[in-house]
């Protein structure tokens, strides 16, 4: 399995570690979260492996190319449109969550629009670069940020004020039956690998993903789910945990690095995670843009040998993204995120079925 697929998975894991997933889990902390997380682990990992192994049959092809080659327009058009919108929504949720977080904890005086624009400006440049460069950028950002993030996580784990008794109290709820909300939210953190639908063209998958890959992804997933859910409980107690808007920011604010230049861990923490979230956002929207481009190509928008369709799509992306964070409040955002996560099985279903159809049609 190519290392880039691991990067995709890692980026999504890290981004969702502190965004809305832990909040959804904690809202239902006495409603079978642990069983949901265990189920989600199996569900997420197996689907990741299935998707990766299916793409092995189509070397150097993107999903639009595969579908266009094997199916007719009435099939591929709605499928690709659905995927494009989903990916855009995924990016939009990440963006809005991080903008809200940024404004609540880091920069109170900055207007929401300005924070959003700062994100969008760089993302828009990022959307215009080559796919290979996106891959390299992911690698560079991860190599730069992951060690520091790991250091901070270890710092948080080893804090003497982290009370493991609270974690154990949370664990005693293992006998409660799982709920769908928490199941879908915890499955969402495994979604990273599906970015392969576009990047398959540039990634070579030599071997079939087997036991070793399953083990690595599972371990990463278990660690992330454990950290995202249990550590905030260890710092903030079990009874009040559902009231925190960003449980992880509050948790990172509970750790003091007394000899560091910046004593409050929060500031470093938020900035690092924003960096990774930025990459996650870029990948999602990059995939979305390519999917949109594959179905909407306006021949009339020609200017000096250049087709302006992609510029138009990016402009639309930005307009919606500027408009949305202003209109939506935290509760609505949470509701929308929940709805989006709940649709996850459909997403996987459509993807796998269309790949299977293509495989049969192409007689691979």
């Amino acid at each position, binding site marked *: 399995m190519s290392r880039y697929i691991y990067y995709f998975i890692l980026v999504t894991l890290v981004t969702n570690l502190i965004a809305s997933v832990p909040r959804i889990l904690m809202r239902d902390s006495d409603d079978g979260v642990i069983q949901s997380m265990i189920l989600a682990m199996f569900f997420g990992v197996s689907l990741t492996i299935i998707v990766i192994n299916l793409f092995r049959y189509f070397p150097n092809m993107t999903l639009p190319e595969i579908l266009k080659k094997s199916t007719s327009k009435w099939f591929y058009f709605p499928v690709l449109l659905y995927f494009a919108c989903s990916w855009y929504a995924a990016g939009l949720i990440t963006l809005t969550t991080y903008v809200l977080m940024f404004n609540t904890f880091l*920069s109170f005086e900055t207007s929401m629009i300005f924070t959003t624009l*700062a994100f969008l400006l760089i993302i828009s440049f990022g959307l215009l670069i080559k796919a290979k460069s996106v891959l390299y950028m992911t690698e560079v950002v991860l190599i730069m940020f992951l060690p520091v993030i790991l250091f901070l996580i270890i710092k948080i784990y080893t804090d003497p004020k982290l009370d493991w008794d609270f974690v154990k*109290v949370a*664990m005693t709820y293992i006998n409660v039956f799982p709920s769908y909300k928490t199941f879908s939210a915890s499955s969402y953190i495994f979604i990273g690998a599906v970015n392969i639908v576009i990047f398959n063209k540039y990634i070579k998958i030599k071997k079939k993903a087997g036991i070793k890959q399953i083990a690595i992804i599972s371990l990463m997933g278990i660690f992330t789910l454990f950290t995202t859910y249990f550590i905030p409980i260890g710092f*903030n107690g079990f009874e009040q945990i559902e009231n925190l808007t960003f449980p992880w920011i509050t948790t990172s604010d509970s750790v003091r690095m007394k000899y560091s230049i910046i004593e409050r861990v929060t500031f470093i923490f938020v900035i690092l995670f924003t960096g990774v979230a930025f990459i996650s956002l870029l990948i999602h929207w990059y995939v979305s843009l390519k999917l949109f481009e594959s179905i909407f190509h306006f021949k009339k928008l020609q200017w000096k040998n250049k087709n302006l369709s992609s510029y138009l799509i990016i402009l639309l992306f930005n307009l919606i993204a500027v408009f949305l964070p202003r209109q939506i409040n935290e509760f609505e955002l949470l509701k929308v995120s929940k709805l989006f996560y709940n649709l996850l099985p459909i997403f996987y279903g459509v993807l796998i079925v269309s790949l299977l159809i293509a495989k049969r049609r192409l007689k691979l």
Partner: protein
Amino acid sequence: MAYFKYLIMLLVVLSFLTGCGFKDIDNRVFVTGIGIDPSEKDDGKYKITLKLAIPVSIKEKSNTSSSYQFLVHEGDNIGEIMQILETHTDKVLELGHAKVILINESLLKDNLKDFMDYLFRRGDIQSIAYIGAAKESAEDILRTLPQGESVVASPLTKFFGNTGNDSPYVVSVYLYEIRRDFHSKGIDAILPIVEANKAGTQLIVNKLIIVGDKGNPLELTSSYTQAFNALRNSAAGYTYKLDTDGLKLILTMTSTKMKYTIIKDNGQPVSIKIDVKMSGVIDQSNKTLLIDNIDEYNKLAAKEIKKEFKEMFTFIQEKDLDPFGFGLRYRTMQLHQKDTFKKWNNAYRELPFDVTVHVNLRNTGTID
């Protein structure tokens, strides 16, 4: 044409250099401490004191009081008072550096929830701010200026945490910690007590107060505070005065480790088993000490310390308080059921403590 493209890019980037609406440091005034007292007048419930740091150079500093400004206002709730206080200064109140929050002791009984909501809800107040109970008046304590105080720093921040003072008598409690322990079932919140001496020149921190969900807060004496800190936080430096059979020893424990578990019988808690391991040195003695007898001293010390600890545990238990979190531990010992905690609550006051203490004295100092 190529230049034109770069020029536009440059302009777009430059537009972000306007400062993001971020207020510069000369427009901010830093709050170093927040004090909450009951109101002295009739028109309101609380009185809030903010200690503002005013930057001065060390050379010009003639007396310490000039480097602080105090804002005081009374009102019905904290949010309201804060808004009024913002109009008492020409700059923005920057609360991100408020490291010490003092609450008047008399407010702890009923109003703790009130403050915590405001203090915690505001994203800019650190959740690692130290919190303490002020004896008599939080305002007076904030206004106390000890001689050794450095410019524009609250002396209390050096009391707490282990950077400055690391005496076993001082318990440091963060804002998030008190919120966690106060709201959780099976553990009660603690706060260190901060007092000023009569002359108002010195601060003293060597006691703690336990705040339960119901009933009056319980104040612990200094020696119990020390024992509590050694047991709960493994604080180094617990000292014990051993006085038996004409032998007078002062022992200092360099490390203390407490393990505890709840013994259950048929799902009912029947006793609390506490196992303490300490190791330390002999600081002072009225006789020549024989190194061969060190085992004997160990046993004597263990016996006496055990008695002291047991007294403390029962003293706290009688008031139906649980700062160690025995109830929390009990909750972790079985899968969640609805009546688990009720069972514990009914049983806790009657539970016997089974304390074992193991002392290991390492050396006798430079002389035998």
